[in-house]
């Protein structure tokens, strides 16, 4: 069995399709990293001016709010309504905090490129230049915002239910790339097995090793392990390619132990996810005997099947495969809304378990088919 796995590993790395795909992805990452480095804006002076502008705007807003608190006057409401509203705050500071949330976040530069992402907030979400490349966001730029970002991932309470948002300290580019690379894992798994059927070499292999359980096991182990390895390698490469941008166009402020722990977790989750998905795609390949069929089925389900379940059978969402696998890779909780209330179902590792159960079922199905079906 070990010998078979080793051979399948060798075949995986010998495949031209694999090598070409890997090369293309690395080139794209390298180019993106170089572009980030050369064109990343804002530069430090811009950052400083934006920061100053934001602080001025926040200070202005707070001054205005405190003055309204003191005067109990708001032109848009009656005095009585406004007084009633103000009574919900303990102090002028609290009122200013609430009133100036928008100003607090306005003025950030939207970096709608590689390091662009979405920041989760308790009651709303919005786009901001931030956490996705913390090394590109100096600590003195939006320090308050950074604090928000760093503390936000822990959990958010929505109507009494703790909910972990889909953004951790490592979130953004890393999670986005990790999620996108799942497509690659599907292609690896499907084509690794599909190529055997297309070339007819599965027949040759069975003439050398007729124990089909071993043949199938070796294939799925090899493709799963390699997909996980490649996934981790590509995420590492992405960070490496962003290094010049961080070094010369940003700073390493905010890159601390928590950041690396988050990165490590994201890479681990992504690699496990890629391994499971590649092995599942390989298992599906043993049933469908066709690369395009497997890729089409997986993608089709991800695009349409999952959406249909979301629309027609929302109660199934906590146990829906696409929902769980994406939550696992993103490190978020699986929740569903019930009458407007978010109900926590399970965390990322619970999502991993659900994903694993689906993979196991698919592999068992593949075994039943592969063990019995004639090879021709």
């Amino acid at each position, binding site marked *: 069995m070990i010998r078979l796995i080793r051979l399948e590993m060798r075949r995986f790395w*010998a495949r031209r*399709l694999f090598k070409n795909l890997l090369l293309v992805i690395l080139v794209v990452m390298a180019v993106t990293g170089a572009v980030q480095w050369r064109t990343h804006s804002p530069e430090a002076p811009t950052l400083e001016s934006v920061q100053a502008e934001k602080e001025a705007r926040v200070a202005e807003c707070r001054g205005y709010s405190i003055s309204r608190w003191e005067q109990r006057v708001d032109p848009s409401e009656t005095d009585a309504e406004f007084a009633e509203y103000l009574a919900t705050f303990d102090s002028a500071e609290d009122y200013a905090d609430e009133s100036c949330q928008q100003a607090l976040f306005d003025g950030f530069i939207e970096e709608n490129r590689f390091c662009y992402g979405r920041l989760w907030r308790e009651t709303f979400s919005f786009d901001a230049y931030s956490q996705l490349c913390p090394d590109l966001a100096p600590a003195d730029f939006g320090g308050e915002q950074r604090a928000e970002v760093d503390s936000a991932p822990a959990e958010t309470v929505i109507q009494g239910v703790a909910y972990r948002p889909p953004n951790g300290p490592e979130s953004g580019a890393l999670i986005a790339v990790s999620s996108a690379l799942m497509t690659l894992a599907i292609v690896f798994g499907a084509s690794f097995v599909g190529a055997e059927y297309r070339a007819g070499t599965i*027949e040759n292999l069975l003439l050398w090793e*007729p124990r089909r359980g071993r043949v199938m096991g070796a294939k799925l182990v090899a493709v799963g392990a390699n997909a996980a390895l490649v996934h981790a390698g590509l995420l590492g490469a992405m960070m490496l390619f962003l290094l010049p941008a961080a070094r010369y166009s940003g700073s390493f402020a905010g890159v601390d132990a928590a950041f690396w722990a988050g990165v490590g977790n994201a890479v681990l989750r992504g690699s496990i996810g890629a391994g499971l998905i590649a092995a599942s795609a390989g298992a599906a390949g043993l049933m469908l005997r066709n690369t395009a069929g497997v890729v089409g089925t997986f993608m089709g389900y991800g695009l349409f099947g999952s959406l249909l379940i979301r629309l027609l059978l929302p109660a199934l969402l906590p146990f829906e495969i696409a929902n769980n696998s994406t939550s696992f890779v993103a490190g978020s909780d699986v929740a569903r809304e019930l009458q407007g209330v978010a109900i926590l179902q399970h965390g990322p590792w619970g999502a991993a378990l659900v994903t694993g159960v689906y993979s196991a079922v698919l592999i068992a199905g593949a075994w039943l088919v592969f063990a019995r079906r004639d090879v021709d």
Partner: protein
Amino acid sequence: MSGVPPILIQRLRKEYRSRRGVTVAVDGLDLEVESGGVFGFLGPNGAGKTTTMRCLLGLARPTSGKMALFGADVATDLPKVIHRVGAVVESPKFFPAMSGRLNLELLGGTTGASASDVDRVLETVELADRADDDFKAYSLGMKQRLAVAATLLKDPELLILDEPANGLDPAGIRSMRSLIRELGDSGKTVFVSSHLLAEIQLMCDSVAIIDGGRLIASGSVAELVEGTSKTLAITVRDTLGATQVLTQAGFSVAEGDDPGSLTVTGDGVDPAALNELLATAGHYVSELRSNELSLEDRFLELTEDLS
């Protein structure tokens, strides 16, 4: 080698079920192949040759019947004897974007074959100089030779080859024939199917003929050809007169392919006696040729009888 036959098939039946109904590819086939030499497995297209081979090698599950390789039940003990069997079923199948050498290394690796083993078999099939080219760049003949090389990598006692001369040019066919003959002479058992009956006749010691999934004849090539009526081709000026003389003498006469030629058939027809008969009647033979009966004639005779 023991007295256990390398191949033993008993009442093999293979059905394919589809929405259109049940197709019987092999119907109660019994076959025993003795150790050593070259065994030809013949049959018209769709006779069930490849299906039989697939069942024998565990690639297809028989509907019923028993098969054994070196005494090991194929259904349960194939892994115990597969290292003694090398096989090519239908066309050569390798990864097109990998070199011939890498393809062999990946296969041979399953049983621990070394790089030098790969080199050895590549030399044997005369592919050493193209070993590092992609499989897709090979000619059909080279692909066939690579497939044979793969089977030799196990140094098997039994080779099962399905149409090994398919797509080969005359030189390639001759080279393949020599290789198979050499393997048979070296003590290995070669079980080979082919539709090139002349080739089979030249290289096989024994043959089995199947049609409609059933065995219709088996034995040594000499046994099968023996006892079949012979024909003589003659050329005379007056074909009508000659036909009359020969018919009166009890021969069966038909017009030949060329003008003035006749084909004479009859049990124990003797060229000298026939020539004398015609000359006595004033019909002088300008050409007389004995048509050697071939395995092909026998094959066609048997399969046409059945149809």
